[in-house]
């Protein structure tokens, strides 16, 4: 008992007798998660403000005689006249490897019931993006495990690649498959003891989504064993708009920790359309002037300052961003989509029509582009997929033209046949990423006409059969392909032998 008393006495002794200065104010009005405050003459922009009952706010509007403040947390106990005080601190969130495998809210507090976080460091939520000098160009790949993307729209570490499309076209699936594929690569490299391997950690930021959807995503990651390499920042639809507005910045702060400490991270913002809507709500309640579609004037800066934080730093690590934007009726020229398209280094456009035709992932090859990723593409992928985008674009053009008549010359017919086979080859079920070496082998088989004798609707089955054949019976060849990452004459001969052997085993 005396020890307890001593502890209390020590604690009391620690408390200085000096007067503590506080800068205070009062709630003048409170509504919709936003408070108007009197006083607080010392408050700084974006500073945390302490409300009674433990709630905190962020000062967003500094006016001549009042402060506009968004409140994070429970506002039900707050009332007009309550005293608030400045904290002198910017909003910060916990960062570090202790967050991996955890689900946290926009303030970095665990919401998964797995106990307190094992983290000591904090990073500010808002941070100036790295400058020009410290940046390095993209040269290492982020492998999504999706053939259509890795071969035609490659993504590099430090890149910002937008995933855009209507609702229900598989945007989240692409992001989740990428996380799962990276986790698989991490595990594989750790098991092989490769010391030069740089693991890619993932951060998934869910903004304004249904709780059931977030739970499904967590379950998918857990089932695939990817959760241990992933941090989930959840700001569901039930959260107040302030939390939804902050969540991407919190996620970016967590990703920056990996980047600053020489590691690589991938961050998925799912999705920035809802983020813009949350920010619009806050801005309207704060009575900021509204512009196009009632968004405030700084909605471009909202996303540019977030996405500019993704970078590859010289001598340090990288942060790759996969923002997601939901379009309405495929309209990519709407306000928020055009903003984000102009900020990012390319986009993966998903089409509803393709999705409904059963072409999944429903990647529109014509509208999708990766501006910097090709310099990060592995040599073997370049060797086998260099002409694919052009061939597919030609196929789409010819397919539209061919609908007008049946008299086609042999060359056009051959191009159409080849195109429809490539389309079939790129069909891939969700949650089933393919390793890059298998992708290269299958594409090599395609380029060398191994799929030509196979009926178009059986190409997908044949490709799956070939993948199984190679991964079970030709492991040495696949391992060589992985380590060499390029197809030389000897490897091409081995691939030919393997494909010839597969041809005899596959019966269409």
């Amino acid at each position, binding site marked *: 008992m005396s020890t307890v008393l001593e502890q*209390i006495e020590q*604690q*009391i002794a620690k*408390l200085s*007798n*000096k*007067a*503590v*200065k*506080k*800068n*205070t*104010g009062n709630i003048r009005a409170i509504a919709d998660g936003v408070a108007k405050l*009197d*006083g*607080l*003459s*010392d408050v700084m922009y974006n500073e945390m403000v302490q409300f009674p009952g433990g709630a905190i706010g962020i000062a967003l509007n500094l006016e*001549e*005689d009042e402060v506009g403040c968004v409140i994070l947390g429970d506002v039900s106990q707050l009332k007009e006249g309550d005293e608030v*005080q400045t904290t002198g601190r910017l909003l910060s969130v916990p960062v570090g490897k202790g967050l991996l495998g955890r689900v946290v809210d926009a303030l970095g507090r665990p919401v998964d019931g797995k106990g307190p976080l094992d983290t000591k460091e904090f990073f500010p939520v808002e941070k100036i993006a790295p400058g020009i000098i410290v940046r390095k160009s993209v040269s290492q790949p982020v492998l999504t495990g999706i053939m259509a993307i890795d071969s035609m729209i490659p993504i590099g570490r430090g890149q910002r690649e937008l995933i855009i499309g209507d609702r229900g076209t598989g945007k989240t699936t692409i992001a989740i498959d990428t996380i799962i594929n990276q986790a698989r690569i991490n595990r594989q490299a750790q098991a092989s003891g490769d010391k030069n391997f740089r693991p890619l950690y993932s951060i998934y930021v869910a903004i304004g989504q249904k709780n059931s959807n977030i739970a499904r995503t967590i379950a998918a990651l857990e089932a695939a064993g990817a959760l241990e390499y992933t941090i989930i920042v959840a700001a569901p639809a039930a959260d107040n708009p302030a939390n939804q507005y902050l969540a991407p910045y919190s996620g970016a702060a967590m990703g920056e920790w990996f980047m600053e400490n020489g590691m690589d991270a991938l961050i998925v913002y799912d999705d920035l359309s809802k983020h813009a809507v949350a920010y619009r709500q806050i801005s309207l309640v704060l*009575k900021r002037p509204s512009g196009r579609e009632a968004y405030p004037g700084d909605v471009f800066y909202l996303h540019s300052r977030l996405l500019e934080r993704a970078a590859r730093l010289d001598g340090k690590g990288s942060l790759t961003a996969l923002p997601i934007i939901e379009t309405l009726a495929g309209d990519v020229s709407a306000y928020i989509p055009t903003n984000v398209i102009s900020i990012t280094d390319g986009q993966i456009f998903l089409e509803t029509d393709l999705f409904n035709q059963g072409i999944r992932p429903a990647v529109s090859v014509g509208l999708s582009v990766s501006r910097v990723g090709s310099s990060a593409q592995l040599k073997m992928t370049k060797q086998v997929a260099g002409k694919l985008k052009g061939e597919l674009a030609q196929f789409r053009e010819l397919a539209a033209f061919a609908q007008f008549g049946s008299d086609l010359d042999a060359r056009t017919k051959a191009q159409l046949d080849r195109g429809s086979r490539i389309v079939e080859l790129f069909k891939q079920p969700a949650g089933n990423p393919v390793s890059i070496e298998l992708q290269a082998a299958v594409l090599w088989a395609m380029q060398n006409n191994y799929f030509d004798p196979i009926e178009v609707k059986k190409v997908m089955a044949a490709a799956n059969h070939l993948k199984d054949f190679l991964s079970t019976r030709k492991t040495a060849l696949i391992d060589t392909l992985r380590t060499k990452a390029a197809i030389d004459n000897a490897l091409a001969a081995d691939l030919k032998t393997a494909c010839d052997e597969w041809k005899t085993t596959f019966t269409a």
Partner: protein
Amino acid sequence: MATHHKQALLLARRLFKLSFADGVLSPELVNGVLEYVAKHAPANPVMVLKAYHRLVATELSRSRALVEHAGSVEASVLRSIAAAMTKKYGRPITAESRPNPALIAGLRVRVGDDVYESSVAAQLATLAAGV
């Protein structure tokens, strides 16, 4: 409604700026403002006067040190607080005493929206937050 509110606020701010003589809020000028409002009756006079009241109250609180205390405080202590605050803020500040038994012991001095806390109640609150 929002426009009316904004206009009332703008007028209140203008009247407030006119209430100063040599950088100090003048009671005569404040009376003059009240007479002007009574005579000319601007749109939304209640809204204007409420906003004006808030601005004047904030200004007055900046030149007054409200000393809350548990137990008695000697006049010399109040004088020294007033002198210290006048020196600190660079403007004449008067001290005003207000008993507050909830502090248990010690003082709380409030100048404008700055609060200087040196009370047992505040220390106990810090202790409770740390446990």
